[in-house]
């Protein structure tokens, strides 16, 4: 099969697999050709293990900017601390906000990073914040880097997967459709499940029976084989592969149906949207999807920060804690990296509206599961949370760490348009203390 580096400008890189699978439209679909499978940059010592047990990633994205003071880095009884108190966790000596009582009991599965500073890259802007947290790079004009989900789908996914490698469950619509995969090619762009709904057009039309559908498929296959016997190319192979994957996806459509989960689990995760979406995430991870992101909205609390965090984190705490508990109990946490992040944090200072504004100079993220040394706090902020006190990290450092946690080499050079691009920002480094 023809070897093709991405960003080559051919048709097979202009129509994404996400779009193909996200809205199947019969013969209109084009497909990418090659590139699935474990990459040569996977560390040799773990390559066989990766092949044996696929690494997966779960990201919980708290849109708008979670307040670190109402979550992972509380400062009770201080001028900036707000009205909530801190509570003990399952790890002696680690305290988090009282808004997260159930998550506190999962702390042994998690690691807190309290010393994140992304101010140079973020400048208080939601878009720039999301970009640097998702790519590990500062957003610059004319340069595009792939999101974490695309990278993981590209290098952790396998060709056998009938499901897309990067699935993003959003609370509302179907995603923004940006260039999420960048030079990796649109094949690794996310499949958005807007409001947790299954991809469009994946259900066999009611007027076509299963027998008729099978007959149509057999006819198409025969014609395809006849064509391929004389004019087989990489492109036609890609059509065939993607078509087959689409059929498999249609057959596995139930994967997206969270109502198939036990009623008790649905109740346990919460009857709100985020509860359903977290249960769907569990279902997708159990089905082998490489990277699942769930967005919970909205934490952009310039006004009445405390009441809104009480409401939002009440949902988060219930669903997230059950999800972590289940992943651990079912053995998935051993090979699933878990991240909880936002585009930035919120100001230590409380404004006149009882709100907190955008803050990127000293905030927190959470890591857990696969490859992470859990049950620890990395870094700290000062008494009022206004500055990082020690072990300062940037988003680039974290991006390196995420890759290394799943056995990938952050220094791998990807060839795009004849240009070598290091997968993770070469000016950053792995935070080895966070790794198991």
């Amino acid at each position, binding site marked *: 099969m023809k070897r093709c580096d991405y960003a080559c400008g051919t048709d097979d890189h202009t129509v994404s697999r996400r779009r193909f699978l996200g809205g199947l439209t019969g013969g209109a679909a084009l497909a990418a050709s090659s590139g699935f499978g474990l990459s040569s940059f996977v560390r040799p010592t773990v390559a066989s293990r990766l092949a044996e047990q696929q690494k997966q990633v779960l990201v919980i994205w708290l849109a708008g900017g979670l307040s670190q003071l109402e979550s992972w880095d509380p400062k*009770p009884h201080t001028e900036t601390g707000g009205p909530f108190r801190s509570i003990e966790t399952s790890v002696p000596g680690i305290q988090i906000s009282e808004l997260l009582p159930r998550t506190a009991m999962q702390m042994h599965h998690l690691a807190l990073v309290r010393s994140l500073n992304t101010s140079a890259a973020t400048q208080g802007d939601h878009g720039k914040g999301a970009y640097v947290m998702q790519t590990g790079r500062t957003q610059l004009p004319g340069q595009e880097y792939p999101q974490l989900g695309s990278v993981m789908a590209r290098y952790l996914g396998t060709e056998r997967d009938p499901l897309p490698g990067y699935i993003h469950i959003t609370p509302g619509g179907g995603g923004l459709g940006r260039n999420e995969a960048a030079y990796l090619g649109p094949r690794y762009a996310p499949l958005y499940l807007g409001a947790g709904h299954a991809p469009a057009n994946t259900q066999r039309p009611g007027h076509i029976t299963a027998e008729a559908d099978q007959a149509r498929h057999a006819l198409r296959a025969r014609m395809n084989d006849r064509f391929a016997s004389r004019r087989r190319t990489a492109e036609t192979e890609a059509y065939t592969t993607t078509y087959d994957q689409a059929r498999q996806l249609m057959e596995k459509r139930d994967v997206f149906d969270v109502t198939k989960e036990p009623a008790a689990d649905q109740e346990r995760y919460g009857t709100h949207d985020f509860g359903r979406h977290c249960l769907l995430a569990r279902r997708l991870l159990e089905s082998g999807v490489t990277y699942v992101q769930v967005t919970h909205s909205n934490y952009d609390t*310039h006004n009445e920060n405390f009441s809104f965090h*009480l409401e939002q984190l009440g949902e988060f705490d219930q669903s997230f804690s059950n999800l972590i508990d289940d992943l651990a109990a079912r053995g998935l946490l051993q090979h699933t990296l878990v991240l909880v992040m936002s585009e930035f944090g919120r100001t230590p200072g409380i404004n*006149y509206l009882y709100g907190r504004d955008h803050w990127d100079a000293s905030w927190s993220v959470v890591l857990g599961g696969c490859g992470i040394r859990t049950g620890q706090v990395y870094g700290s902020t000062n008494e009022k949370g206004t500055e990082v006190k020690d072990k300062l990290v940037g988003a680039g450092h974290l991006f390196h760490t995420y890759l290394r946690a799943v056995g990938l080499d952050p220094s791998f050079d990807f060839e795009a348009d004849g240009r070598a691009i290091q997968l993770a920002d070469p000016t950053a480094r792995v935070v080895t203390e966070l790794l198991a």
Partner: protein
Amino acid sequence: MTADPTQTHLAKDLAHDRPLVTCRFAPTGSMAFAGSEDESIVGWNVETGEKVQLKGHESWVFALDLTADGQTLVSGGGDGRLIWWAVGADAPMRRIDAHRGWINAVTIHPDGSTVATVGNDRMVRIWSMIDGTQVAELPGHERPIYAARFDAVGKHLITADLLGRIVFWDVETREEVRRLDAAKLYKYETGQGVDYGGVRDFSLGPDGARLACSGLIEASNPLGAVSNPAILLFDVADGAPEPKLQRPKEDVKGVGWGVRWHPQGFVVMASGGTGGGWLWFFKPDDVNEFHKLNLTNTARGLDLHPDGLRLATAHHDGHLRIWSMSEPTPAKTT
């Protein structure tokens, strides 16, 4: 002497160094108290300005009430604690864990026998003033409860929540006897995925026949504080009352954090938000205010002095401002 809202002016500016969140006059009128973000209660002698500070909570102090004799203060905080204080002493008399999470309102029965509390845990609880034991727990609200008050004769306890649900409880039987719907003050903002609004405060009319609820309307962007302050007026005597909406004439953004029904028959609301701090004076039959006053800083709480001539407002800048609704006294000349 009668109050003249159009003459309202700043009579006293009492400063604290941290933001205030609520305020209450002592029924005797000599003291005014405020709950603060610094976890303390600050009290001032209204005449002399002498200040006391009471420390005992482990979170912001959201709610205050005093016995009719002004001798006992009861406070509720974000720590879920209910604390009794003897006015004049600086140490708590009694401290109990009353709610899981914030206590949003405290109200003492007119006969001084019990105190009722409500909180974010959606519970209404009644406690003995004598020994602090719980005498009743009244479930029924499904969302955080923001406001509570006994009526003037102590027959009913009235509670109101985020959804705008107002419940009348029979104090004797402890049964729910009536509900009113102030859902116009509530909104679920679909795009942001948040609940917002609710009854932030309420006040019964002098004859107990009408109820004024303050809050907000037109919350197009709750996370960005885009909403307008408003009052819903209920005719409680009516069997199925349709509330009347009162709102400022101009588009001044904010929330109606406090409301009081004046014995002379008008309603006053304090608002705070991106539009600044304001006092709004409404006649019951009018939609818009007949007078307004800018407060120089966003307001977070309101109370009416027992003399009916003064108002107190709690502010983010840490000041408790006392407003006189009478003609300013001319400055003395020498």
